[in-house]
């Protein structure tokens, strides 16, 4: 505010004034409906999740195994030409610990979200998912080995949540 101007003219309104009907208002909700199509590759990926499998597409030109699958190889500018299953184990590429829920409320137990490079896929190829069965979030490390924890088959719907979370994979001691 400028030094000379102490008060601007105009009406100050608080959210409360609007809620209490102190001023006249027009309320409106547009019918903004949408349908988001998963496309050919992701549709099959989700169908395979229902069967407990993680499927990837392959490109014979560059030899990459891509997950989540796509129908177009962004490196060779051509259609991908094969499907292959990858493992439900992998390594944490990067992760984030959130003490805020989706509605911005505080959480006591944080949500840990990670990008998981899946075994069998090309380097840097992975999916984003939650990390579970971790006592303290500080145990989570880059490169940590993890394994998918699936919902029972009858509860799966063909969604990414058919995998409940990824849990740390205890390495077998020799």
């Amino acid at each position, binding site marked *: 505010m400028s030094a000379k101007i102490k008060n601007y003219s105009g*009406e100050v*309104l608080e959210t409360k004034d*609007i809620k209490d009907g102190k*001023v*006249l*208002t*027009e*309320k*409106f*909700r*547009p*019918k*903004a*409906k*949408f*349908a*988001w*199509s*998963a*496309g*050919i*590759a*992701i*549709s099959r990926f*989700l*169908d395979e999740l229902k069967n407990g499998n993680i499927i990837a*597409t392959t490109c014979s030109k560059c030899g990459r195994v891509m997950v989540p699958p796509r*129908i177009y190889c962004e490196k060779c500018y051509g*259609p*991908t*030409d*094969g*499907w292959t299953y990858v493992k439900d184990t992998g390594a944490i590429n990067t992760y984030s610990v959130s003490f805020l829920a989706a509605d911005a409320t505080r959480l006591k137990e944080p949500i840990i979200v990670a990008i998981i490079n899946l075994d069998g896929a090309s380097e840097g190829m992975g999916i984003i998912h939650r990390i579970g069965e971790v006592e303290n979030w500080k145990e989570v490390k880059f490169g940590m080995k993890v394994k998918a924890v699936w919902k029972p088959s009858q509860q799966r719907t*063909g969604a990414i949540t058919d995998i409940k979370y990824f849990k740390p994979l205890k390495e077998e001691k020799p």
Partner: protein
Amino acid sequence: MSLEKITNPLSARHWMGDMEADYVYTLGVAGERFFKEIKENGRIMGAKCPLCNIVFVPPRMYCEKCFEKLEEWVDVGRKGVIHTFTIATIDVDGSKLKKPVIFALIKFEGAHGGLIHKIGKTDKARIGMKVEAILRPPKERKASINDIEYFKPLE
């Protein structure tokens, strides 16, 4: 493979959603007084600029030509003239209307601007046609533009 084509997006896996793009619009100081005048006194008002001698309909707080604060309000009457019009055959969602609706910009004598409203009691409109605002009974008025039910041709 991979070149399988789909033409209907719903044949692939899909998510249906509804964007909650709600809004609340406040009418503002001048807008609020304008609608309250219609509701309580049945008057369509304009705001007059003492310097430019222009009457703005709908009224505003400041003159848009010289920025003078507008404090003098005048009754512009219920009679106006169709400045331009359009005939709608579909509603806001694109569904076909049972009966077409005529929407017009109605100007009032000696006033700058005008009101957009429905033309009733006729299926014909004409530029320059004289019309009159038909107000709802006082008990049904809600301080909204719909307190005017429609404009009726005077010819």
